């Protein structure tokens, strides 16, 4: 229920202007809520007098059952030519996983697509299992801002009432998820790596905690949608998309005011990662603090080049300034699942391992036979990296010549 404190309301019209649904009117200098209010919370967020409160009581099971469908936020990148926006790979991963869950609940999957006016190719979304797209276009929606996205996504979720809402656990996904959850008073689970539906039809959200030392399974019993951010590169993209599959595109009609955006991006500084970053790499050569000096990174780069791969590293190297944070694998960095992962001089602390143990094949080079990395490696070489790596490079070159 939405309550307005008529004693403190100044009739300033901020709520009226910022309501995405035109559900707030100022009558005789006091805000009055209309019947089409969705309780999306945009008004309470802009009210300078704190005159608007939304009471959200725990819902009954009958009330919860009214929420239907799995929603996914399609976080987008700009295309290489800047002419269009492209959903990130994690969107397709979420579609594959949502498809599996929908097989149990019989629900429809819809993707929320926000754009500044540039086209977003929805064909891959349908091909990967979405039955519908809910789209909203406004020039304020690029680049990403916490405030504009929270307002629009909260409005969509409040109006459409899905039972599950998933976002990628990317930096912006983890920036947005908690804002939407707090605005709508929804439970939210961070950075999930497993999702299941239990016998009662609840979403079981499983995630690593305590730096990866434990796994915790979490439910959201009292609020809908059940919200979770999901770690990228954990779920596989469907290998058999249905090309040509079609779905509905619904244009969502809400108001979005410039005034809601209280931040401004002044500069963007890309850290050079030739080949498109480590999260999509098929081969990764990762360096750890067992290396002697930053110069040793050169031979690892050479090895990566020979295998068509990318250099990455563990947290101590980022902290020492040897590599940028965009190349950090692990719990506080990026989770990767390449076909081949070569760990060099990495001891294998659990914080690192949770970020790479989904890799296809793991090769570890370490001079300590007791290093925990050997517990997750398919092949472990106990030896000095300064000798083993040049020998590997030489052997690979010879093998290529012979082929």
């Amino acid at each position, binding site marked *: 229920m939405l309550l307005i404190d008529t004693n403190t309301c100044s009739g300033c019209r901020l709520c009226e202007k910022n309501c995405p649904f035109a559900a707030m009117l100022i009558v005789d200098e006091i805000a009055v809520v209309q019947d089409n209010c969705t309780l999306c919370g945009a008004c309470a967020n802009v*009210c300078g007098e*704190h005159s608007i409160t939304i009471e959200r009581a725990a819902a009954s099971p009958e009330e919860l059952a009214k929420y239907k469908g799995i929603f996914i936020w399609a976080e987008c990148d700009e295309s290489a030519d800047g002419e269009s926006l492209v959903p990130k790979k994690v969107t397709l991963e979420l579609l594959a996983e949502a498809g599996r869950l929908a097989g149990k609940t019989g629900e429809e999957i819809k993707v929320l697509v926000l754009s500044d006016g540039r086209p977003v190719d929805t064909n891959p979304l349908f091909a990967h299992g979405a039955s519908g797209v809910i789209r909203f276009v406004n020039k304020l929606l690029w680049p990403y801002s*916490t*405030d504009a996205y929270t307002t629009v996504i909260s409005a969509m979720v409040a109006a459409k009432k899905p039972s599950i809402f998933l976002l990628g656990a990317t*930096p*912006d996904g*983890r*920036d947005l*998820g*908690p*804002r939407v*959850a*707090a605005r709508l*008073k929804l*439970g*939210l689970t*961070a950075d999930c790596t497993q999702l299941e539906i239990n016998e009662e039809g609840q979403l079981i959200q499983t*995630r*690593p905690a*305590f*730096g990866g*030392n*434990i796994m*915790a*399974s979490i*439910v959201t019993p*009292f609020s809908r949608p059940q919200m979770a951010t999901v770690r990228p590169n954990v779920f596989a993209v469907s290998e058999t998309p249905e090309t040509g599959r079609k779905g509905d595109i619904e244009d969502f009609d809400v108001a979005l005011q410039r005034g809601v955006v209280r931040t*401004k*991006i*002044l500069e*963007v*500084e*890309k*850290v050079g990662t030739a080949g498109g*970053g480590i999260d999509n790499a098929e081969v990764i050569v990762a360096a750890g603090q067992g290396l002697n000096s930053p110069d040793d990174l050169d031979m690892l780069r050479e090895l990566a080049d020979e*295998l068509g791969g990318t250099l990455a590293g563990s947290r101590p190297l980022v902290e020492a300034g040897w590599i*940028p*944070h*965009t190349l950090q694998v692990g719990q506080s960095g*990026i989770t990767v699942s390449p*076909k*081949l992962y070569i760990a060099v001089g990495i001891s294998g602390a*659990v914080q690192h391992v949770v970020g790479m143990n989904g890799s296809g*094949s*793991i090769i570890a080079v370490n001079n300590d036979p007791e290093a925990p990395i*050997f*517990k*997750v490696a*398919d*092949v*472990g*070489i106990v*030896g000095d990296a300064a*000798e*083993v790596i040049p*020998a*590997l490079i030489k*052997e*690979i070159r010879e093998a*290529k010549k012979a082929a």
Partner: protein
Amino acid sequence: MKILVCAKQVPEVTNVQVDPETGTLNRDGVASILNPFCEYAMDLALEMKEAEPEGEVEIVVLSMGPPQARAALLRCLEMGGDSAILVTDRKFAGADTWATALTICKIIEKLDGVDLILVGKHAIDGDTAQTGPMLAELLSIPQITYGVGLEMDEKKKRVRVRRENEGGFEKVQMRLPGLVSVSKGAASRRVCSFESILGARAKDISVMTADDLGLDEAELGLQGSLTQVVKVFPPISKEAGRIVNGTDANAAAHEVVGILKEKHFV
């Protein structure tokens, strides 16, 4: 100008394990520390304080937790915080990120004129990174997450924050009051002087409990939480692989490249 730093006491997670038999968390002998990212938030706050004339910037530190969390606050005061608030009550136990953010929000609403809230990007025990943004939303203030550097504009109405993102960094400007979550950045790490350690003991640590919030008990702790943990278990470990002796680097390389060829990586 008033900066509020939210600090959390956490177990040193590298030593935490789950008992595979009982599924309970074994914290025996695990030390409690100030969450490292909260420490980086303190570093940034202190850097700002030192850049301004004496007395211009006041740093208040807040921690919600058991009575022992006083130690984390004391550490922040030793670093250079001016005063501290310990938010503690048995009724807060079991709070999820929502219930935690709501409790801290009610405390901050009682404080006068906080201009900037700094929090760690996440706590190393829960790893959720949710409480900061939820707190900002409940306070209806803007946020910048994953900040690694911060500068104040001259009128102190805005901050410019260098933010980590997937592709690199962004410089983002934000109107105050606002909240910044802090990652490890360029701010220099601090060594506390003997004087500052002694001085901390004379600084004020006030205590606030559930009675100070004006919230219904059903909004607090486990009862007020929207998520529930149903199970904890150790991560699944995998069978050990093949070990190659690297004493003879060339022989080892030959063997491993043979495997790579089999798997078509070469």
